[in-house]
């Protein structure tokens, strides 16, 4: 493969031909801010946040769509670049609700990160602000188009990851907006609520309804685990606050990348459902009564033992579970074969 060598902030970097300046910089450990760029999605070059200075080039090019060439000299933090980024942020903030106070994405928002990084505190550009109603009529996703910065990641994620193209850009100029066809709410569109658009949104325009109302981003501990639903084996992170699972967010899974389906992303509510069994139950006179573990375990041991003694091992049968872990299935067949003394063990693989 042909390679090119360029210099970024004085550091010499060699990358394969066709690499963008952004990727080359990242390879060299140099930070460049981005809103619309995503390594999994097609290049877009819309937000201009990633502009850099390349002597000899007219204007400041967007590094995410500029290919590195041999001998290129790049400055990522020159005064002109910083000035441009500040102006971009000021223009965005001129039409962005100042409600980090209660915004669910506070702490996990690129607009906020970059405003802090570049010290952009105020909005010098007074003017009209959007005043769209917040779309809150489905149980999964809250859409607040007042906070949208039109980076188009959700549009590309829907088309390129989910293959659905539910949302796209609509209207023009100041009125430009991301909408489903005919500008209906998601609930009236063909949306399957996979939430993959939410996973890529860099600001607070798309939020997980349950998670973002239950915890601030800095309050949660994230634990990577494997989805308990179908056999695909997607990875995701359980978001935990005060020993409760308050939501699910994408991480980089071996199987699924950041993609999840509605069940994986929004189907965690059963964990703390009031119907959960929290104590052993023993049936007495046709009714369940609460029991201690000691009572329950010794009753089970005694009854299974009695059947084994009276009728033989093959009068016992065990259903293990395609829902439980490998370790548990292993122990269940070990228990069945070594303790009960029968091969009568199966599970519902056939259903």
């Amino acid at each position, binding site marked *: 493969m042909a390679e090119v060598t360029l210099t970024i902030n004085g550091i010499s970097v060699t990358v394969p031909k066709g690499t963008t300046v952004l990727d080359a910089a990242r390879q060299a450990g140099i930070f460049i801010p981005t809103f619309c760029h995503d390594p999994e999605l097609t290049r877009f070059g819309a937000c201009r946040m990633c502009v850099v200075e390349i002597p000899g080039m007219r204007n400041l090019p967007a590094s995410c769509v500029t290919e590195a060439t041999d001998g290129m000299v790049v400055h990522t933090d020159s005064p002109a670049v910083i000035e441009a980024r500040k102006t971009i942020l000021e223009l965005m903030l001129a039409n962005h609700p100042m409600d980090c106070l209660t915004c669910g994405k506070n702490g996990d928002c690129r607009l906020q990160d970059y405003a802090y990084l570049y010290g952009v505190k105020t909005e010098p550009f007074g003017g009209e602000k959007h005043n769209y109603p917040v779309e809150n009529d489905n*149980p*999964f996703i809250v859409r607040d188009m007042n906070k949208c910065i039109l980076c188009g990641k959700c549009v590309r994620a829907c088309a390129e990851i989910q293959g659905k193209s539910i949302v796209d850009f609509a209207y023009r100029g100041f009125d430009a907006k991301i909408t489903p066809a005919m500008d209906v709410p998601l609930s009236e569109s063909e949306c*399957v609520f996979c939430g993959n658009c939410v996973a890529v949104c860099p600001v607070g325009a798309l939020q997980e309804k349950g998670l973002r109302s239950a915890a601030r981003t800095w309050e949660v*501990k994230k634990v990577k685990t494997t989805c*308990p639903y179908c*056999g*695909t*084996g997607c*990875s995701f992170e359980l978001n*935990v606050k005060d*020993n409760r*699972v308050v939501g699910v967010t994408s991480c980089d899974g071996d199987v699924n990348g950041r993609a999840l389906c*509605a069940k994986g992303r929004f*189907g965690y*509510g*059963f*964990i703390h459902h009031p*119907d959960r*069994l*929290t*104590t*052993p*139950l*023993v*049936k007495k006179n046709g009714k*369940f009564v609460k029991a201690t573990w000691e009572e*329950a*375990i010794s009753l*089970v041991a005694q*009854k299974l033992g009695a*059947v084994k003694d009276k009728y033989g091992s*093959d*009068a016992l*049968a*065990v*259903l293990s*579970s*395609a*829902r*439980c*872990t*490998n*370790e*548990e299935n292993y*122990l*269940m*067949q*070990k*228990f069945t*074969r*070594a303790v009960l*003394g*029968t*091969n009568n063990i*199966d*599970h*519902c*693989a*056939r*259903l």
Partner: protein
Amino acid sequence: MTNSIREIAGANFILAIGTNTTESHPIISLQAKKAKRNGATLVVADPRRTEMAELADIHMQLNSGSDIALLNAMANVIISEELWNKDFVANRTEDFEALKQTVAKYTPEYAAEITGVPAETIREVARGYARAKNATILYTMGVTQHICGTHNVFAVANLAMLCGHIGKESSGVNPLRGQNNVQGACDMGALPNVYTGYQPVTLEENRAKFAKVWNVGELPAKPGLTVGEMMEGAADGRVKAMYIMGENPVLSDPDSDHVVHALEKLEFLVVQDIFLTETAALADVVLPAASFAEKDGTFSNTERRVQRVRKAIDPVGDAKADWQIICDVATAMGYPMQYASASDIFDEIARLTPSYAGISYARLEQGGIQWPCPSADHPGTPYLHKDKFVRGLGKFNPVEYIPPAEQPDQDYPFVLSTGRRHFHYHTGTMTQRTGALEVHYGAEHLEINPLDAADLGVVDGDTVRVKSRRGQVEVKARLTDVVPRGLVFTSFHFPEVAINKLTNPARDPVAKIPELKVCAVKVEKAS
């Protein structure tokens, strides 16, 4: 699966047969969509016009249960038009002549009569499959939940071997497993005939090996009962007590009334679950288990990838992890079973299971590993059968078409098929309690073709009574041409639409899988 999920995106030709992939395996469907965007041909064989079928280049809307006729006809075309992979067949397979003889009579015209798929379409698909560089077959319960399920799978495998579309990247035979750890439960020997890693209980050396590590004198040699046989055994008194962990056969198994009757006849039933399921309600003792978020462990996914499950929170209330409960019961029965952690159990599994031998929790921290992984320095196996099949040569198992056990007739004129919905899962125990999924998709309905509905005087939203020879349910009708005339469809996710009261427990004689995809019903407007 013989291949990895991500390899699907690299296929040039995808035959998806009996899989409603976008709803049942949404993330796997993304790979099929990606392949299609890269220019692959997607062919879907399904009696329903699912979203997957809408996406397909060709939708073969076959009659329920006619898969073998379709697959044999494809083989017929491939052989008669000399499109088969002669190198592969010569070097890697045996009994080709037997296949050739059997499929000879399955001309596309003959198959068209049985399947309802036009002969010319069968030819086109056969040619496309045979000529593709990489071709993959995806299937799920639409293939297996028939009395001829095993034969359906043979027919699929015959086709793949005939064209050499197996044993290489992005080419293979890929059953998509429906539950998070159904692969793992099988791998772990939660089956009546094998120990972990499919080591048969009938082999003396296997029994000796496990008996030694488990520290018991002798292990039973006779293969045990399957789920269905257990239920029959319970009903006729051969089985006296059952221990059910994390399963809900009352809703998931066919002919629910029979299952309830069988479980009620037991002298003792203990159920271990996270909710008081329909099955747990019948138990003498219910043990509260921890959910996946409350324990450590591993799941093995449909592509044989072993991945970590990590404890995020403490168990709710007094619930305990299933593995701890099993240890407690075993110990109380006089067999001391103690492990400090799930990791320790895994190490014992790796010791006893050649295909898991190289996997450990330490390695899994770096990411999932696909078995076979025979040693600690083995990277895992993304696709199977690379240079040879497990048995050596791949054997063609020619199979004949047989019709479903129950055919529609004058009294029960519709075919009922069952399956899954995107927003729900299995018997709904979890997805009906999320505060979100059930809010969005709160009630089940019966899909019925508008022309059939018109004949019955049923309009969209009417409550209808669906009856089979075994039971009945009431459900709202949804008029849709997703189903062809004569077919009705619903899911088994909703306890209030316990559709398995109706389904047919007739089983495949080998795999014992019930024929949930076809039973005869009548539909009438409820007053």
